[in-house]
């Protein structure tokens, strides 16, 4: 037989006997013969493990691993060795959503820890552990704003990464919500534009910090304007950066959302990542996804359990405020183990090293004369520059030297032609940065 099927001929015979059948076909007799599939699938034949490994190694060789010098939603941060060992434990890897808390305290405990850490990082009260990625978490935040305000229009800053914007627009279109654009000034969300756009149709306002250009936007006055308008203030941001920059909570935002990929998850061609979504306690019943709470068992032992389930699809069906059924648990475990290892000091140091490297690279690139500043705004680990050189040529040159960088923002939006992104994390040494600069400086 086959290694994943334990049935021997004797087993099959005995099992059929118990069912009183001679042929397993008998079990399928209700299926109309007109639609029965009676042939082999037109797919390859079974590969042995030896053949399979060779095949996958061949496919692996068709990908080019590069030294990464760009970000834009996927960051090449250090992944401590410990993470992989813990997330590979079958108790975490192969279990399902913790429906039976008596035999799921492992999962429930780390989800509670995750909720605690992410709430603290974002400066909010509550977190779920159920978002697929940053863009879909942002779309869920939009739905929350609709549910909280009963309004149908959402304002999104044009400094939000277009990959987030397009997911938000897709979700909005089919739900019957309208997306309006908040026009930026000098690469940042602008308060005058906000004043002009706010009216009693606006459910919420979505901004991103650091934004699409890497800029740490200033939100002075935003929360008051938005709250005076009874709208919901939503800040998207790379979670790692929140180890040092002002939190959504400190901005008096209502919802924080974004991606957790930067917390120990490999870039891995875009997934799986983990979205985060946190809010104030008053909005917890509008929150999508699974939430874990502390309780006690019969013997008064502290325990954890999924709670507030009356919000969710399996109870509320069409009246649920979201269709989320997943719990991105395993990725929440990546983030939790990462944050445990790094602690407040490590997270800060990651940001300091990234900041230092990025600012050094920025100055060195300007000094080559091949790049010019686009905005004069503060940034953290990624930034954009304008170049008069052909961007394809730059990318090809870097690629030939094993480097991925200078992503063209023009690929996202035509108005940003020849504006390129660079990102530096703690993984990039001074020598590597100098190498990049010398490659770019030699171009003409």
């Amino acid at each position: 037989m086959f290694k994943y099927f334990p049935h021997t001929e004797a087993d099959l015979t005995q099992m059929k006997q118990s069912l009183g059948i001679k042929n397993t076909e008998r079990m399928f007799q209700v299926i109309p013969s007109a639609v029965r599939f009676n042939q082999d699938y037109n797919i390859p034949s079974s590969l042995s493990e030896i053949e399979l490994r060779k095949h996958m190694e061949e496919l692996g060789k068709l990908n080019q691993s590069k030294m990464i010098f760009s970000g834009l939603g996927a960051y090449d941060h250090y992944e401590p060795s410990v993470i992989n060992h813990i997330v590979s434990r079958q108790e975490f890897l192969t279990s399902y959503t913790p429906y039976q808390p008596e035999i799921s305290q492992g999962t429930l405990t780390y989800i509670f820890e995750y909720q605690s850490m992410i709430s603290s990082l974002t400066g909010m009260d509550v977190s779920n552990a159920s978002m697929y990625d940053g863009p879909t978490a942002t779309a869920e935040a939009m739905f929350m704003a609709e549910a909280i305000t009963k309004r149908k229009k959402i304002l999104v800053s044009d400094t939000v990464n277009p990959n987030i914007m397009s997911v938000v627009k897709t979700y909005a279109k089919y739900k019957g919500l309208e997306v309006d654009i908040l026009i930026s000034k000098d690469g940042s969300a602008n308060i005058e534009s906000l004043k002009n756009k706010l009216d009693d149709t606006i459910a919420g306002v979505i901004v991103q910090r650091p934004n699409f250009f890497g800029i740490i936007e200033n939100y002075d006055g935003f929360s008051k304007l938005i709250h005076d308008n009874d709208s919901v203030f939503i800040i998207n941001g790379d979670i790692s950066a929140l180890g040092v920059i002002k939190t959504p909570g400190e901005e008096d935002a209502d919802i924080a959302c974004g991606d957790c990929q930067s917390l120990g998850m490999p870039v891995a061609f875009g997934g799986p990542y983990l979205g985060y979504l946190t809010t104030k306690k008053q909005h917890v019943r509008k929150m999508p996804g699974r939430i874990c709470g502390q309780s006690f068992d019969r013997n008064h032992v502290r325990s954890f359990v999924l709670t507030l389930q009356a919000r969710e699809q399996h109870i509320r069906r069409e009246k649920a405020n979201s269709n989320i059924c997943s719990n991105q648990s395993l990725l929440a475990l990546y983030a939790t183990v990462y944050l445990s290892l790094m602690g407040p000091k490590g997270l800060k140091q990651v940001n300091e090293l990234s900041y230092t490297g990025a600012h050094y690279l920025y100055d060195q690139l300007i000094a080559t004369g091949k790049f010019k500043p686009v905005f004069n705004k503060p940034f953290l680990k990624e930034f954009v520059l304008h170049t008069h050189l052909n961007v394809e040529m730059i990318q090809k040159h870097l690629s030939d030297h094993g480097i991925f960088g200078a992503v063209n923002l023009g690929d996202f939006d035509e108005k940003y032609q020849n504006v390129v992104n660079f990102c530096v994390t703690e993984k990039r040494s001074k020598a590597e940065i100098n190498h990049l600069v010398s490659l770019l400086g030699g171009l003409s």
Partner: protein
Amino acid sequence: MKNYDHLIFEISVPGRVGFTLPNSEISGYNLSSLDASLLRKEVPALPEVSELDVIRHYTNISHKNFGVETGFYPLGSCTMKYNPKINEEIAAMKAFNSIHPLQKASDTQGILRIYYELQSMLSEISGLHSYTLNPFAGAHGELTGLMIMKEYHLQRGDFKRTKVIVPDSAHGTNPASATICGFDIIEIESTPEGTVDLEQLKAALSDEVAGMMLTNPNTLGIFEKDIIEISRLVHEAGGLMYYDGANLNALLGIVRPGDMGFDIMHINLHKTFSTPHGGGGPGSGPVGVKEFLVPYLPNPQINKLDNHYFLDWNKDSIGSVSGFYGNFKVWLRAYVYIMTLGKENLRQVGCLSTLNANYVRVHLEEEFNLPIKGFSMHECVFDGLKDQSTGVTTLDVAKRLLDYGVHAPTIYFPLLFHQSIMIEPTETESKQTLDSFIEVMKKVAKEAITDPQMMKLAPHTTPISRIDEVYAAKKMILTYKDYLKENQ
């Protein structure tokens, strides 16, 4: 370390660290030179622990979990089959993990080929034309599929179709996804046999119906014998057929959704194609469509020209539903699984999983109520104990099973019965495992009569006993900060 019950925060000691980072070789730059108004004031409440502290903490709490490798996990509707180790090994390869999602197609030909070949194999397996692998989970696939349904009607200029038909036996995600997609729901009741009531369906159909969502076999594990007629009726009324692929495992080698008349479907790769459930995620929910719906698939799509694979953006597409290209390392595992099984073995899955479910069914009919007679598909549903005179409920049965080292089946779903017990053994379980499970179930049924009090208090041997769920909902202690506040 017996009865270890700390939170990571409780073993934190100020000054301890669990990381090493390089020293900065660059001087003259300092993060603190950023305007103070842009920096966070409060230090984040993260633990300070050593590397061994972290390892021991998570190892200890992992011991309180039950995985597929721990024991039998017959959780109905979730297809908890074995998650092969080779899939994990491949998914850990550097050649897949180190690729940035924005790298050029020339850098990612191996991955794009896997995407393309997997979508084409899924098309063959399900009888559809093309797949997107971008949706992140089953419910996300449902939403994506419904967007495609809506877009199809809109682009035909048919704006009246605002309703979606969903049977009352459907998974909760079906109506929830339809609502999120801006549809109204028409719920139709099942027949006493648990299948679609054709008369009710006819009455529900009109030119306002965009389509119907159906799981087949349905959530009772019953094949919809009238499927050809159902598809015909919905199509005749101008609607599309959506297939919820949650129960696809039953159909491998038996019948293809496309051949049954379905136009759109999602597949839960974490069920049928063996990718690990990870405590609830990450999943992956590819969506397949018939040829006439291909233009509406989400962007980007992956196409092939002269052996070169590339990202393709279609103007008629619903737009994008994910930041990048879905859960790559999940669909990578599914690809490895299909290549391992190949055509010879994949076609056995439906038959063996169905045989296993029916074997369990016939052996428990004496002790448990079987509301729907006859052969089931890959799972069987009981409506509680036959003898409920002692007041022992399905919940008690489920909890007692934990004492015997078995994961509980899905309980209280489907909602059609009051005491539902939904058992899905999957094809990777042996007759010996099923025999032990049957024996345990019979024993528990006996205990329900002989010692109902003990049953009410079960489980007795698990890391914790039954939890006070009301306390959790009432107190809303959702973070360690809340916990400290409650206990100060």
